[in-house]
């Protein structure tokens, strides 16, 4: 596994479903969790990431490689993040935000959180419940009371009462 002098060091990451991934150390250390392992000298063999499945890890590695290839230009990094997350569905985003949290990657964590928030924006209550699998346990009277209490937040939002 020892890398030759002068060539970039590659790390091997293992997902919880036993998939192996190679990634340049310089990209992988975007994760503080991985960086700590490297600094502690625990990154010689395979690094097991017990909380991340293969599909999500592949995605995270794509992000690591993509973002680390961009020089220090916050605008460009932001537009890369936006593009990277643009086609992801909620399930994928939820997996990614958990992975980003576990891997301690604050930039990805914030980007995914903001994306999930953006998905919720301007949507009706019914839509959010369906999308996020939230079961409505209010009685109609209770729900009406909560709505009345925060009436101002429902201005200009579509009402749908199909829930």
């Amino acid at each position, binding site marked *: 596994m020892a890398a030759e002098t002068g060539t970039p060091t590659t790390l091997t990451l293992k997902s919880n479903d036993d998939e192996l991934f190679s990634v340049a150390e310089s990209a992988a250390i975007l994760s503080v969790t991985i960086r700590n392992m490297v600094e502690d000298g625990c990154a010689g063999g395979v690094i097991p990431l017990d909380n991340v499945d293969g599909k999500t890890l592949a995605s995270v590695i794509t992000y690591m490689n993509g973002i680390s290839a961009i020089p220090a230009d916050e605008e460009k990094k932001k537009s890369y993040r936006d593009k990277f997350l643009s086609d992801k569905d*909620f399930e994928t985003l*939820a997996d990614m*935000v*958990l992975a980003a*949290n576990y891997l301690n990657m604050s930039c990805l964590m914030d980007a995914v959180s*903001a994306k999930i928030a953006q998905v*919720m924006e301007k949507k009706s209550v019914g839509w959010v419940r369906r999308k996020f699998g*939230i079961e409505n346990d209010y009685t109609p009277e209770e729900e009406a009371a909560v709505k009345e209490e*925060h009436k101002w937040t429902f201005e200009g939002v579509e009402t749908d009462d199909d829930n």
Partner: protein
Amino acid sequence: MDRIFDLPEGILQRILYFLSQEEVVRTSVLSKSWRYTWCTRTNLDFSDATFKGQKQEFLSVVDNALQQYCDQRVCLDEFHLRISLHDREHESVSLLEKWMPMLTTMGVKESRLSIRSEYGSIDHLPSVVFEAESLRHLSLKKIVLDENAIGKIALCKNLRSLHLLDVAVDDNIFQTMIAGFPLIETLCVDGLGIGLRTIKMNDLRNLKYFTFKEVLFSTDELCRIEIHPLSLETINVSYGNVWFHKEANFRNLDDLHLRGVRSSLDSLSFCKFPRLKSLALLYCDEPKESRIFIDAPNMLYFEYRGDFVPSVSFATNSVREWKSEIHVTYIITPTANDGGTSLWFLKLDELLKSLSRSKISLSIYHKPRSIFKVDIIQEKINTVHDYGRNKPVFVETLNLSFPLSYFSTLVNGAFSICRPRKIGNYLGEWEVEFVGYMWKILMERESGNENELTRLLFRDLEGANLEIKGNILAIFAGIISFDSTTSRTLEYEKVKIHKQEKRI
């Protein structure tokens, strides 16, 4: 399964952080477990714009939320508020006087306030605003800053950014105020009738972005701005007079943008700009007479706009490729003799030579276009023969925008000092007329009809391409006679003439 609610609390908090206040409060209707989730997030963010004029409701919603956070001891890190004041209602002011101390008590780390006057009133800033220790970002619009407002400014030492738009403030109050913000990084003063006549920034050692724009009548005296902080990264001044600290080393400055500055810019020659990437001198009164030397080894972009040819030279790193964009307006009165024009082109030649390591885009305009009749200015070709005493400078793009009556004067002048790779960038009417005329002369020469004009115009010419896009073909059709087969099939057509020519 409530997947989003099952996310660990830290993650859920982070997601909610990015929602607007009304979005986050609305989650209370989702289900019982969401009922009070909104008031666990660590930021509050209110804008009266959301309430569409329901001012009372807005004030009570903000007040209730703050009270709730305070009573339940919920951690509040950030507080954002956009609010308008009106001189006839005092409720907003008295609530601000209640909320600001609350923020301090609750240990808010960062607050951002945006305060403006509305409905034509001009309100005075309540002094309580500058009492909030957590205040980081303040933006004021159409507000008066008076003695009273800055009474307790010492408490507000954490301010990082201050935006003043159409804010009335006098020199003394402004100086006292900014001296109270030692950590300020962004300072923007913009608008009409600001009242400021002097800005001194000597003590702002963390200032990174400085913008000043004033709307004035041309006869008004400009505000005097003394620029000292070496921490500055961006300086953008429009219609102010800047005074640079002589021999200063602006080691952090990336971007220097000056527009309508009337003061002398001589001191720039004595400063160092090791990081400067972009310099714009737009419609400034200098350097008309004096020469300016810019020590900026990392320049990437220089822009000049004005109605005289400036004397600017640069010390730049020769290995880097950089760009320069020159927009100069040719103003010579009809009575001026040839000497004026010759001198003008000599200065332009000097400028181009000092920029010759950059990719130059040169635009020459004439103003005013309509006053002079055709043929008033008809200079003799031989007077422009020797403008460029040395080798002509290569120019990426040459744009010319003037009536054909100036054709011989300006084209001969331009061609004797530079060799453009491309002529014409826009497709305005003047441009089309000019390019068409040019092409006609070229075609005449191709057909063996060479005269003194064509010889001068096209010396060193290696080739000519005329690219016409379909939609302007009609305009061209009147000027250039295409052969009929070409024009009919022309959608994106290239007409090409290529002929090697030796220098005459």
